[in-house]
């Protein structure tokens, strides 16, 4: 598995080969350059998350999923948004692949590990395990796409999107999976958000705390916002799921 990944890594290294590439892209080749890609795509994905959350919160209108369905239809019907969708997928892919390459390269920077390492005393677990949380989120993302996006876009699902969502989240395992994933997302964002500003050089002694604070607030909003929907649906608070499913 790792060998396959490193092959992939080599392939990408060729793509980004310094001599062959356009010089204006050279900046992305270095270790900081790769981090720049992570930061830029990461922040772009944050914007997408905001937009996605806005959509999800439509379910709070308790209108039988009408607003939510209208929103999803708008998102699928608009040609411009369809185009943005490709950029979004590209963003996710680049974020994931670049992350993978970084992780592999970084592992190579320390071929012999420490026998005793107390890194918990100098940094947080989540800041050190962005690769792991990112991978989990990627798996979640695939499941999530298959469940909702592909089913509706290509699978010819007959029920409304709101109904799919309500059905899915009244299933215990799926709701729990989703909630756990959102908690992981929260931690991923907590480090990732402020880290992006650090990488972009938009931080200094004064702003470092601001970004950290903003990152935590953003992560909390995303985590609570997204995770609240399955909670509400599963327990049928405010009659959210029964309202949609008409029970």
């Amino acid at each position, binding site marked *: 598995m790792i060998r396959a990944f490193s092959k992939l890594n080599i392939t990408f290294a060729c793509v980004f080969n310094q001599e062959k590439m356009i010089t204006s892209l050279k900046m992305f080749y270095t270790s900081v350059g790769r981090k720049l890609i992570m930061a830029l795509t990461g922040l772009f994905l944050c914007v997408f998350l905001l937009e996605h959350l806005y959509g999800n919160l439509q379910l709070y209108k308790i209108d039988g999923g009408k607003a939510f369905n209208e929103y999803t239809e708008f998102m699928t019907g608009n040609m411009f948004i369809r185009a943005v969708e490709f950029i979004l997928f590209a963003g996710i892919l680049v974020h994931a692949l670049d992350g993978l390459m970084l992780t592999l*390269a970084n592992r190579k920077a*320390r071929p012999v590990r420490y026998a005793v390492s107390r*890194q918990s005393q*100098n940094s947080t677990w989540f800041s050190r395990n962005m690769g792991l949380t990112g991978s989990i989120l990627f798996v979640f993302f695939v499941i999530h796409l298959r469940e909702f996006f592909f089913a509706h876009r290509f699978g010819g699902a007959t029920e409304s999107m709101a109904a799919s969502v309500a059905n899915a989240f009244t299933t215990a395992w799926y709701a729990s999976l989703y909630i756990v994933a959102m908690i992981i997302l929260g931690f991923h964002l907590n480090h990732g958000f402020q880290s992006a500003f650090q*990488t*972009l050089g938009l931080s200094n002694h004064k702003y470092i705390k601001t970004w950290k604070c903003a990152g935590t607030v953003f992560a909390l909003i995303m985590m609570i916002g997204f995770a609240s929907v399955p909670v509400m649906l599963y327990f049928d608070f405010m009659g959210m799921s029964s309202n949609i499913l008409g029970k």
Partner: protein
Amino acid sequence: MSETINVKLKIWRQKNTSDKGRFELYDMPGVSTHMSFLEMMDVLNDRLVREGKDPVAFDHDCREGICGMCSMYINGRAHGLLKGTTTCQLHMRHFENGETITIEPWRAEAFPVIKDLAVDRTAFEKIMQAGGYVSMNTGNAVDGNALPIEKVKADEAMDAASCIGCGACVASCKNASAMLFMSAKVSQLALLPQGEPERYVRVLKMMEAHDEAGFGSCTNTGACESECPKEISIAHIARFNRDYLTASVVSEK
């Protein structure tokens, strides 16, 4: 507090760069708590020499916390548990009686082990040679006061310049990245007018040398900052990144 403690040392022994290396255990009874960590190592080596064994090789020189030569990874931490302290200034009073202390060399692709706990930090030299200077020849300087420098900036430059080049940042970074070391120098020179003409060329050249040496990338965990014996801030890394971005976008080549 008792005046002496008994400890066990689990030390990484490696004959040379190509040797595989292994841990060896040593009993250290009756260690005075007033000893520095390196003096405790001296006592061990003294004993080993008397027993006709090879003493543990480790780098050290000034023993005042400023030369940056000492470099031990003690109980999972670079320079041990104390904040803002080099190994030579760490004293045995911070250890418990009966404790087993694990001592490893800095671990990084760019820092190959020379012997036991001594590593080769030539990679840092390469980074410095790539651009860690102001290109001026002796005798060309204008009067020291010809160019006033804002105190805040001079102080900030001094904060960055206090780096001792020990490599604790690399040792404690999960990616073995040398960004804190490199950014400290870049930041110092970027803050001063003397460094301004080469500011953007410097950052690109040093970046290249950094990657070539085999250091990893910075993922902003902040471990380097908390383990740095001079407590250099990762704000300097942000300044480096900013300059790198600007340099990349602005440079015409």
